[in-house]
């Protein structure tokens, strides 16, 4: 062993993590709370409460929570069967599906909703293709439609977590159950379900938080059906005259509290139901869960899912991007590739925006993975209070609406006394992305790491491994899949991040997302849609490239 003991290093890492989080995340958010009690530059401690009492607040809060619950249900229905299929049937060899299934998540939510709206609205693409189906329109423009759109957008996220957990459960436990005479349902209920619960809890919580903090779909689809949620209300106070930060921040504080309560409930479940699954012995998929007819059913399920989550929205997006005149609808003589030509000409504004997006998200995702892994390792099993604090702090950005976090960051980094001149630089954008998306890596690495048995590290020590050696040869290989998932997620979302970019980009700088948004604002829908196709296409290509490199290395 070196000069420092393992315990010392741990304590050090923990302290450092806590301070970094305080500086990067907690302080900016505190600025928000401070804002919420200052009305007209006067301290009024009860201002948040008065705001809440005066606004139609309870109704909006309830709408948000109800939407969150419905979307959890929706994503579960989509992700659970899929995770099961992709970990237990022959289709698990279709690695390309993993990348394809990320496409819905890579599609900016407001673009996806636009796609659905264009398809389903009166005189929309559905009606132009199948005039007899016009009767579907009214039932689609309802809360049910909104839940469907949001579930189709978010399910890949839950799927990745669940599949990871199912793969780790492996076959032996279930086979033991079968040997003892347990039927399929019994085995599912008594073996798989409890083992899955901690990953599911984590996933469901994040889905809930993502849903109630989501702005794109409520702003496009929700507004259309008159379904108001917290984010749209907050956005109203923050972006229309007269700007009222204190009202917005009061509401954000409540949203934050609601999310922290959820987080607490989840962490209780997590502590109760976490089991050490990855021991020294290797694991393999269960043979019990594979049979002939399930394959057919699985293929059908995946096919339907792909049509709903990618086929329909992308049909609309592609159609809209290649239309000469939007008022003419679907017709061969209305087809043009001009938007793409305009976008892809070298040195154009759009090309610049595209390159900006790529470089910014590459930087952000790499930095986020490093930071996130550090936090996740420090958190470990959330045993001590400090570990739980680090856990809570690192999750904070995911529990506040992006726009609130970003305002906090601006207040913090642009204060007159801030000595680091980061505001209005590319560095600030990267930092914002890192802070917004670091919870993903934390979650992914944590969910892998908490299931690794401590016996493995002890074994390493017994055999005289130094700390760095244990980390390199035992910890790292085990958490790499989590890190990779975190990297992919961060890159994907950072490259389409809108709300933060709108506020934080230095003047004269655009990313693909703000470019798209600007085109919609300017009425250039085809240009915006074409940019969506190109940027999602590029991200997909990059992921395919990574996936193929990854499978060549083949760790198991």
């Amino acid at each position, binding site marked *: 062993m070196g000069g420092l*003991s393992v*315990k*010392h290093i*741990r*304590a*050090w890492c923990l*302290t*450092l993590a806590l*301070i*970094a989080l305080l500086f*990067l995340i907690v302080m900016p958010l505190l600025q928000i709370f401070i804002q919420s009690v200052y009305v007209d530059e006067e301290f009024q401690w009860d201002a948040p409460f008065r705001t809440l009492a005066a606004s139609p607040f309870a109704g909006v809060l309830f709408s948000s929570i109800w939407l969150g619950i419905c979307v959890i249900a929706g994503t579960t229905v989509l992700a659970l069967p899929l995770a099961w299929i992709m970990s237990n049937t022959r289709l698990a060899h279709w690695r390309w599906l993993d990348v394809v299934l990320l496409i819905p998540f890579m599609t900016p939510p407001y673009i996806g909703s636009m796609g659905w709206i*264009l398809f389903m*609205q*009166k*005189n*929309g693409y559905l009606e132009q293709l199948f005039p007899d189906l016009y009767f579907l329109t009214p039932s689609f423009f309802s809360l049910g439609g909104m839940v469907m759109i949001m579930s189709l957008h978010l399910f890949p996220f839950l799927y990745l977590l669940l599949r990871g957990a199912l793969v780790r459960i492996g076959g032996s436990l279930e086979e033991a159950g079968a040997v003892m005479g347990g039927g399929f349902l019994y085995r599912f209920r008594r073996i798989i379900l409890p083992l899955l619960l901690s990953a599911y809890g984590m996933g469901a919580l994040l889905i809930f938080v993502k849903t109630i903090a989501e702005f794109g779909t409520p*702003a*496009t689809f929700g*507004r*259309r059906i008159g379904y*108001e949620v917290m984010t749209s209300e907050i956005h*109203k106070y923050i*972006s*229309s*005259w*007269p700007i009222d*930060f204190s009202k917005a921040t009061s509401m954000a504080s409540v949203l934050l509290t609601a999310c922290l309560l959820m987080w607490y409930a989840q962490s209780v479940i997590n502590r109760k139901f976490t089991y050490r699954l990855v021991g020294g012995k290797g694991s393999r998929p269960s043979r019990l869960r594979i049979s002939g007819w399930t394959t057919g059913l699985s293929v059908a399920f995946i096919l339907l899912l792909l049509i709903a989550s990618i086929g329909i929205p992308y049909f609309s997006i592609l159609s809209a991007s290649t239309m*000469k*005149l*939007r*008022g003419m*609808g679907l017709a061969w003589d209305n087809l043009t590739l001009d938007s793409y030509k305009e976008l892809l000409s070298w040195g154009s504004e759009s090309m*610049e925006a595209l390159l*900006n997006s790529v*470089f910014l998200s590459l930087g952000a995702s790499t*930095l986020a993975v490093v930071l996130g892994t550090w936090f996740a390792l420090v958190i*470990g099993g959330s045993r001590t209070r400090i570990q739980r604090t680090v856990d809570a702090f690192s999750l904070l950005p995911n529990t506040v609406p992006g726009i609130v976090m970003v*305002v906090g960051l*601006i*207040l913090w980094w*642009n*204060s007159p006394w801030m000595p680091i001149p*980061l505001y*209005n*630089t*590319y*560095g600030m954008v990267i*930092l914002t992305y890192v802070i917004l998306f670091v919870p993903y890596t934390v979650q992914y690495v944590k969910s892998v790491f908490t299931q690794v048995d401590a016996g493995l590290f002890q074994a390493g020590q017994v055999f005289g491994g130094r700390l760095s050696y244990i980390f390199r040869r035992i910890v790292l290989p085990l958490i790499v899949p989590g890190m990779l998932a975190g990297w992919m997620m961060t890159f994907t979302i950072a490259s389409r991040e809108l709300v933060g970019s*709108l*506020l934080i980009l*230095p*003047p*004269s*700088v655009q990313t693909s997302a703000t470019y798209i948004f*600007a085109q*919609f*604002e*300017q*009425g250039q*829908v085809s240009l915006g849609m074409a940019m969506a196709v190109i940027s999602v296409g590029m991200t997909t290509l990059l992921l395919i490239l990574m996936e193929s490199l990854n499978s060549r290395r083949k760790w198991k």
Partner: protein
Amino acid sequence: MMNRHVFRTGWKKGTMLALTLTFGLAVAGCGTATPTKDGAPANGSAGQAEAASTDQKLVVYSAGPDGLAKKLIAGYEAQSGVKVELFQGTTGKILARMEAEKTNPVADVVVLASLPSVQGLKKEGLTLPYPDAKNADKLNPDWSDKEGNYFSTSASALGIAYNTKLVKTPPTSWADLAKPEYKDQVNIPDPSLSGSALDFMTGYLSAKGDGGWTLFEQYKANGVAMAGANQEALDPVITGAKGIVVAAVDYMTYKAKAKGEPIDIVYPTEGTVISPRPAAILKSTQHEQNAKAFIDYLLSDDAQKLVADASLLPGRTDIKADKRANLDEIPLLKTNWEWMGEHGSDVTEKFTQMFK
């Protein structure tokens, strides 16, 4: 896994050193993030180094339309040699950014799409008066500040935009849209998101008095739907999901029509409201001379010609637009900007409640 006692003492011992280290790390961490700025694609961004000697910089926050703002900036840059950093967004986005930057303002000049907001900025003492602006005397006096706090260098008029494939006989008055033939066909922009829609509502009410609300009640009864900001309200009409936008911004309609979309606009006979687009210098400006020169440029013949070409109404009365209806061809309501500025938020609230 961890012995609590040992952990605690270890923690205490290390705390001081850790604190010192972390701040070092935080600074260093940001130090490593900053070079990315220079490493990022070379688009001639923020060259602070070369701008150090003389004042060659100006930061402008401007509300759309996108193409026009860029042309104006390019024109000014060519004329003055000053490098302009442009932030583009809706009026709301710009105001939000200014609010977040309050303690350390960045912008020198703002161009907004709403008169009441800039009146608000003036009231809060955030604007820098520039009474000697060249050509300011040729501006429409109703839209600009006498003391030179803001200058409306362009404007749009509000009308009724309709899909020519779906609506064969276009309405001629605001009241027509309450008729059964237009039931469930009409969109109206959300006044909390569209400054110009709010201008229409407050303008109409200031001209008609409280009785003006009857029109909106009839709209609600006839299934008029509140639909996002201007372009969001217009898009469904272009694609044919809806037939009509009431209180539509005219230049957006002209632009779509010029492209060949099946859309057109009428100005109702009883008169409509103009929505001026003011530019103002902020008191906090670090580049006062450049900001003033920029205002002069916006009022110049060249810039006003660019405005007219973008299908907007020029701010100067002596410049005519040939791609659209000019001011003298648009019937106007007798509006009261004072009243409109004061009652904006009440009207927004009442209206959005009514149409929810």
